C-alpha cells in the first residue's frame, strides 16, 4: 500500500531518516513509535507526499505520493496548531469531501464520528474533544483505504480516548490500514497489529507488540523493598532496575531467582508482582529513553 524504500531525508546537516525501509500492508494497524526527533513525522510526511525524500523512493498505492490519484485513497489526521475557526464542521467537510472521487456520505460521516449535533457550530465554539472528532471526520471523509493518524488522542480524557480506540478498531476491521503515531504506549499496545520503533532515523524494531516485548527477553518484577537498587543491579540476570514511586521495577531473565534472593534478604518485602514485559519497558530498553515517563509527566 505505502512503502518507503531505502529512504533518506536530510534537513541541512541533520539526517531525519537514514536509508529506511518500511512497507505498510493492508488491513493492519501499524503503530510508529520513537522518541522526539526519531523521524516519525518525517516518515508520515514522506508517505503523504508533502515532502520529497533526499534519497530512495516512496510509493503510495504504487504511485508517487504527491499525485492526486495516490492521495484519493488516503486520509490523514495531523497534529494542527489551529484550524480556521470561523467555518463550521459541515463547511470544512463539504470542501474536503469535494476533493475525493468517492466521498463518504455527509450524514454517515457526521454520525460515525459523533458530531451530527455540532455540525453547524463554528469551529471556534467547539471543545477540544469535539475538535478532534471533526479532524477525525476529515480524515475519514474520502473513504480512505489508508489512514494516517498522528497523535489522535492527545488531550482527550480516558473515556473519549477509549471511544476513539473503538472507532479505530472498527476501521481496521472494515479492512482499512492505519498508520498510528502516538506517545501513549498503552495505546499502541492496545491497538497495534504491528509496532515499528524508530530511533535517530533508523528502525530499531519491527514486529507485533508481543514480538517486541519478547525481544527484550525476560520478565518484569515489581516490589517494595529496602534492598539497595545498586546491589540488585549487580545480581546476574538482572538487566535493569528502575524506581517507580516507592517501588522498584526490575527487568530480569530469571524473575523467580531474583525473587527468592530478595525475599531472603528482606523479610519485609511487599507488593511483589511478576509480569511479562510491557511495551513501555520494551521501548525503554530498545531506545534507552524513558519515553513513557516523559509523556505521563
Amino acid at each position, binding site marked *: 500500500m505505502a512503502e518507503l524504500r531505502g529512504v533518506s531525508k536530510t534537513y541541512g546537516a541533520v539526517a531525519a531518516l537514514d536509508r529506511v525501509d518500511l512497507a505498510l500492508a493492508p488491513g493492519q494497524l501499524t503503530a510508529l513509535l520513537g522518541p522526539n526527533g526519531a523521524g516519525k513525522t518525517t516518515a508520515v510526511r514522506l508517505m503523504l507526499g508533502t515532502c520529497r525524500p533526499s534519497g530512495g523512493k516512496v510509493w503510495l498505492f504504487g504511485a508517487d505520493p504527491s499525485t492526486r490519484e495516490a*492521495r484519493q485513497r488516503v486520509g490523514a489526521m495531523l497534529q494542527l496548531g489551529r484550524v480556521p475557526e470561523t467555518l463550521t464542521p459541515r463547511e470544512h467537510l463539504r470542501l474536503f469531501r469535494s476533493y*475525493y472521487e468517492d466521498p463518504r456520505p455527509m450524514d454517515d460521516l457526521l454520525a460515525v464520528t459523533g458530531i451530527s449535533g455540532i455540525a453547524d457550530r463554528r469551529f471556534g465554539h467547539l471543545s477540544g474533544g469535539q475538535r478532534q472528532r471533526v479532524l477525525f471526520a*476529515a480524515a475519514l471523509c474520502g473513504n480512505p483505504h489508508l489512514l494516517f493518524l498522528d497523535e489522535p488522542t492527545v488531550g482527550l480524557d480516558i473515556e473519549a480516548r477509549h471511544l476513539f480506540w473503538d472507532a479505530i478498531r472498527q476501521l481496521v476491521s472494515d479492512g482499512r490500514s492505519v498508520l498510528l503515531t502516538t506517545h501513549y504506549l498503552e495505546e499502541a499496545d492496545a491497538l497495534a497489529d504491528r509496532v515499528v520503533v524508530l530511533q535517530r532515523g533508523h528502525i530499531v524494531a519491527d514486529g507485533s507488540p508481543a514480538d517486541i516485548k519478547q525481544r527484550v527477553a525476560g520478565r518484569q518484577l515489581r516490589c517494595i523493598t529496602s534492598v539497595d537498587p545498586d546491589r540488585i543491579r549487580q545480581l546476574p540476570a538482572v538487566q535493569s532496575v528502575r524506581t517507580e514511586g516507592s517501588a522498584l521495577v526490575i527487568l530480569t531473565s530469571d524473575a523467580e531467582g531474583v525473587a527468592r534472593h530478595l525475599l531472603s534478604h528482606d523479610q519485609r518485602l511487599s507488593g511483589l508482582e511478576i509480569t511479562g514485559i510491557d511495551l513501555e519497558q520494551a521501548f525503554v530498553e530498545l531506545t534507552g529513553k524513558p519515553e513513557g515517563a516523559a509523556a505521563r509527566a
Partner: protein
Amino acid sequence: MRPLSVRDLRIYGLESRTELLKVMRLPAYALPTIGFPAVFYLLFAVALGGRPQDGAKVATYMLATYGAFGVIGASLFGFGVSLAVERAQGWLLLKRSMPAPTGAWIVGKTAVSLVFSAAIVAVLVVLGVLFGHVRMPLGTWARLSAVLVAGALPFSAFGLALGYLCGPNSAPAVINLIYLPMAFLSGLWVPIEMLPTFMKNLAVCLPAYHFAQLALQVVGAGRGGPAWSHVLTLAGFTLFSVALALGAFRRDEGATFG
C-alpha cells in the same frame, strides 16, 4: 498538466466560496480592509479635498489612488497574513495531503482578494459619486473598476511570496512595513505631483506607482508615460513575486520537521 475537468472547476468554486466565508466572518479583517480606504478617501478626497473648485477633480484623482491603495492592501493582507498563519498551524499541510487540485488553495485565496478588491472599488465609487461629485462616462467607470480589480493579481502574487517568507507573528508587521511606506512613496496618499523630485523618481521603481498610474490614466490624470510601460513593470513584478514564492516554498518545506 491535465486538462481542467468540470469537477476541478467545481472544486475551485467551492474552495473560493469556503475561503470567502471564512474571511467574511472575521469582522476584524473584513471591516478594516474595506473601511480604511473608504475612511481615508472621505477624509482626504472629500472633506479636505483642497480648494473647493477643485472638488470633483480631486475626488476623481483620489478615487484612482485610494482605489489602488485599498486593492493592494486587500491582496497583501488577504494572502500574506492568512498564508503565514495557516502555514504555521499546519492547516496548509493537511490540505496538501488531500487530493485537491494543484493550487486549489491559491485559487481560493485569489478569489478572496478579487472579491474584496471589487468591494473596495464599489464602496469608493459610491462615495465618489455621492460625496465627491465625481462624474464620468459609463465606459470610464467600467474601465477604472476593471483596472483597479485587475491590480489585485500582481499584489496577490507578492502576498503569496511574503506569506511564505514570514512567520505568523511577524507577517502583519512585515507586510505593514512594506505596504504603508510603498503606498506613500508611490503617491497613493498625497498625489505624486506634490512630492519632491527625488521621491518622484524613486516612485517609478515601485510597483504601486505603476498600478496607480494605470488607474489615473483611465481618468485622464496620468503623468504621461505609455500604458504598456506600467503593464510591463507590473507583469515583471508578478513574475518576480512568483519566483520568490516558489523559492520560499521550497525552503519552507525543509524548515520544520520532527
